């Protein structure tokens, strides 16, 4: 089975983000970047399928040369080779990026295309459906369980109040959610081996951008906590504030 995993380089969740002058991007200096956590589930799923059924796992990422480091993380986890679709900056528009990925995936002869359900930087949730549309393939998003049997696949999706089970034929585009698996850590020998695995770099055939970021603003500062009283006597006031002020009850 030949599996493509599309991965993205994103700021670490623990990073304190500052907005760059101009208000349309973040300051990258001093920011730690990681493999998008939802994409880790995709890499792990691909590696488990390969271990069970044989085949090849190809990690693909779009962006400037710094994404090669993210690709090497996937190689260190166990992917066989990597492809960088090279761009100058970090394009934002989903369809523009999806067009470039689709162009690469189209010719790859993949049985399965995996990616995280969203990137933790832009929260767009849009890449899997966009790729499915552009490639004319079934697209199943936010999968928490995946079974592949021959050319058929069954997936579970957690929906409001329950679980939805879907079946589809391969090839397909599947986006991965928490709960699918527990991603492995890159082992130290894996990190060394990654340096010797093939890394291809080619220009990305980006589509035209239709959406641009206008402004980024940080969330408002959270007000300091407040002690409303002590003991049982304070409970009515606490409940009242949780209802009327915090609006969580």
């Amino acid at each position, binding site marked *: 089975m030949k599996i493509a995993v599309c991965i993205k380089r994103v700021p670490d969740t623990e990073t304190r983000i500052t907005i760059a002058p101009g208000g349309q991007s973040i300051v990258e200096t001093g920011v730690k970047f990681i493999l998008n956590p939802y994409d880790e589930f995709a890499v792990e799923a691909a590696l488990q399928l390969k271990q069970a059924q044989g085949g090849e796992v190809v990690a693909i990422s779009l962006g400037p040369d710094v994404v090669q*480091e993210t690709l090497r993380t996937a190689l*260190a986890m166990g992917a066989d080779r990597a492809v960088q679709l090279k761009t100058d900056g970090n394009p934002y528009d989903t369809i523009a990026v999806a067009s470039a990925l689709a162009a690469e995936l189209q010719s790859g002869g993949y049985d399965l295309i995996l990616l995280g359900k969203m990137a933790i930087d832009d929260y767009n949730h849009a890449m899997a459906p966009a790729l499915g549309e552009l490639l004319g393939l079934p697209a199943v998003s936010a999968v928490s369980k995946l079974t592949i049997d021959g050319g058929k696949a069954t997936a579970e999706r957690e929906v409001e109040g329950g679980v939805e089970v879907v079946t589809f034929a391969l090839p397909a585009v599947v986006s991965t959610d928490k709960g699918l698996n527990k991603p492995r*850590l890159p*082992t*130290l*020998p894996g*990190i*060394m081996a990654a340096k010797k695995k093939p890394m291809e770099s080619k220009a990305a055939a980006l589509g035209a951008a239709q959406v641009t970021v206008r402004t980024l603003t940080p969330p408002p500062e959270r007000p300091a906590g407040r002690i409303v009283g002590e003991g049982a006597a304070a409970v009515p006031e606490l409940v009242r504030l949780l209802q009327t002020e915090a609006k969580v009850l």
Partner: protein
Amino acid sequence: MSTDFFNIEGALSEEERAVRDSVRRFVDDRVLPIIGHCYVEGRFPRELIPEMAALGLFGANLPEEYGCAGLNNVSYGLIMQELERGDSGIRSFASVQGALVMYPVYAFGSEAQKRHYLPKMASGEIIGCFGLTEPDYGSNPSGMITTAREQGDGSYLLNGAKMWITNGSTAHAAIIWAKTGTDDTSIRGFIVPTDTKGFSAKDQKGKLSLRASDTSELVLQDVCVPKTALLPGTGGLKSPLMCLTQARYGISWGAIGAAMACYEEALAYSKNRVMFDRPIGGFQLQQLRLADMITEIVKAQLLSLHLGRLKDAGTFTPQQVSMAKRNNVDIATNIAREARRLLGANGILAEYSAMRHMENLESVYTYEGTHDIHTLILGQAVTGLNAFN
């Protein structure tokens, strides 16, 4: 991380950062949630051994051809830093397995010994310990009384006792140092399977430090090992001291990890803990503590990083390692104590890490060359005069 005040990150290679990050996640996910409890129970978390092995932590700076990761020494140091950010006991386990067991097999072993032992030690199938220190010979190992007498058939008969042996009761194989003659030039190393008749290990009870680590007393009573147990490249006290230099290098990094853990905990606490209507981090006395801590951490980071670069270049000296071990463990011990104090009454709880690190570091201060012995090594290095005896 808040401890990277001098952008040490930028001085590390991508590979070094990747190694550090993997071990950091392992420690965050697997060590930190359980270690306080293990410490109180006085239990080394053996269940982590297979995971540590799978990650490639053991002997990670030894070559790939023997089943090891083949990392450089800076990466190896970063592993030790991250493990000790968890607990000195976890780091000690990896230090012993890598620097005190696998290293002597690699440096002094026959090709057959290397091929047999190293892959199994890297995979955690064989756990080792290092028997040099004796009840009456700690800082003065040349006085050891353990003997290895060659028999007519070429085998050796070992007799003696070893003390303060990390992993002693967990180990499948012990590297035992013994005199084949009368003086310290006759010291040789042996790989002794711990199930050999006459070999026994007993847990040392009542430790108030390194409680999440196995520390044992070994007794060797007419332990007979074949000639093939001898590490052929060993000769004199220099051989075990070479092992200790490897381990002390890792300890210099490990101490930074313990200090980082204490500092980060204290910093976070100082911002959240309100006293006199404001976070205690806003008071000058606590800021002095924090400023001193971060300054000493940065100095230690720079010292160990440069030492690692020298080690990778093959130009480092044991005296430089002594300086780094002595300084970094000393500052970490002080940082742990100051962090404990900053945490107030909470600081005595196992729920926080400062007091556990503080207690652990008292052992680290004393083992692998006491602080005082490293002082004398440095004194001799700069004066040319021996103050040992």
